[in-house]
C-alpha cells in the first residue's frame, strides 16, 4: 500500500523528508505561540476552557467553549461567572459569584491570615445547584483572588464537545493524532 510513497521518499532523499518534518514542527510551534500569546494578553493561564459539568445549566451545557480574561487589578462583582481552581484539585470549576467581601483596612477574619486593602473574599455557586460551593472548597471558607483563573466574557456553544469526547474515549485521541501525523508526513505539498 505504501510502496509508491516509499519509492518517492528514496528518490527525493533524506533532505526532503527532513524538510517535511521541520514544516510539521513549525506548524506545531506557531500554534503553541499563538496559544501562549493569547494567555499573556488575557492574563490567564488558559484563556479558552470547555465546560465539563452541567452545574451552570441552562446557561452553559457540557461542551460549550468559554473565553476568559483576568484583568489584574479589577475586582470581581457578584453575578460574574468565574472559573476557579482549588489547590489540591486540578479541575477548573465554572460557577457564578454569590458574595464578595472587599477589605478596605487591615482586618483579621477568623480562619484566615490578616487581610489588607485590595483583597477580596468570594463565595460561588452553580446556577443549577441548590447550595453554594463550600463543600467544593476543600476546607477553605472563602475563595480568594489567587484561586480564580478568569472571568467569562463570551462563549461558543457545542464547539468544545470534541475535547470531552477525546477525554472520555482515549482511543479516539490516539487515532486522531495518528491519522493527522500520517497525513502530515506523506503529503507532498
Amino acid at each position, binding site marked *: 500500500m505504501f510502496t509508491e510513497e516509499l519509492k518517492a521518499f528514496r528518490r527525493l532523499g533524506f533532505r526532503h523528508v527532513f524538510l517535511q518534518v521541520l514544516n510539521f514542527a513549525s506548524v506545531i510551534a506557531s500554534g503553541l505561540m499563538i496559544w501562549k500569546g493569547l494567555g499573556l494578553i488575557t492574563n490567564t493561564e488558559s484563556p479558552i476552557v470547555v465546560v465539563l459539568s452541567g452545574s451552570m445549566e441552562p446557561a452553559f451545557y457540557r461542551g460549550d467553549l468559554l473565553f476568559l480574561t483576568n484583568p489584574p487589578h479589577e475586582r470581581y462583582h457578584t453575578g460574574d461567572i468565574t472559573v476557579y481552581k482549588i489547590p489540591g484539585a486540578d479541575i477548573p470549576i465554572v460557577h457564578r459569584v454569590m*458574595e464578595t467581601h*472587599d477589605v478596605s483596612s487591615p482586618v483579621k477574619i477568623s480562619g484566615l491570615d490578616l487581610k489588607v486593602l485590595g483583597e477580596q473574599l468570594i463565595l460561588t455557586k452553580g446556577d443549577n445547584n441548590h447550595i453554594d460551593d463550600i463543600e467544593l472548597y476543600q476546607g477553605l471558607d472563602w475563595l480568594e483572588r489567587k484561586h480564580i483563573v478568569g472571568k467569562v466574557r463570551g462563549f461558543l456553544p457545542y464547539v468544545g464537545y470534541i475535547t470531552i469526547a477525546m477525554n472520555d474515549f482515549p482511543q479516539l485521541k490516539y487515532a486522531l493524532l495518528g491519522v493527522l501525523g500520517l497525513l502530515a508526513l506523506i503529503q507532498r505539498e
Partner: protein
Amino acid sequence: MHSFFTRINNVSALLSSCTMALLAAITIASLLQEAIYPPQINGQISMKPVKVFHAKTPRQRRKQEMGFLNFNMTADLTPLFTWNTKQLFLSLEAEYENIQGVNNTIVLWDRIVRRPEDARVKIIGAKNKYAFKEIGGKGFGKGAPGNASYALKYNLMPYVGMLRYGEAARLSDVPFDVREEL
C-alpha cells in the same frame, strides 16, 4: 489538482471561515444594537426593615448574625429580550459595609428567566432564598456603620457573543432591626 483530499480540504476551509465570519457578525450586530438602542428598565423594590437574629444554620460552624428579608419587587424586563437573548439571570443583592470596614455584596435571591413572557417580575412578600450571614464583625447590629442598599441586577446571556450586565432597580438605606435570640 481535483483529488478527493484537496476537495475536502477546500470545502472544510471555506465552511469554517464562513462560520467564524457569521459568528463575528452576530456578535458585532448585538453590540451595535445595544449601543444604539439601550434598553431602559425601571423597576421598584420595597422592603420592611430587615430582621436580624443570632442564629446558625446546620451547615455553619458557629452562630452568626443572620438577616431575614421581606420584600416586594416589580420590574418589566421585556426590552432585554432580543433575537440574540438566550436567558436572563436576575439577582437581588444586598450591599453594606460592616464595622471592620469590609464592603460586602451578597446575592439573596435569584431567578432564571428563559422566555419573554416570564420577563415581567412581580413579587409580593418574598423571603431571601440564601442565608444572609454577616462575615464576622458587627454588620447588622449595634455599632454598625449604616444601612444597606438592595439592587436588582441582571445578566443577559446571548446565544452567541459577549455577556452583558446591568441594574434594573435599586433601593437605598434600608435599616436593620436587630432582635436578640431566635
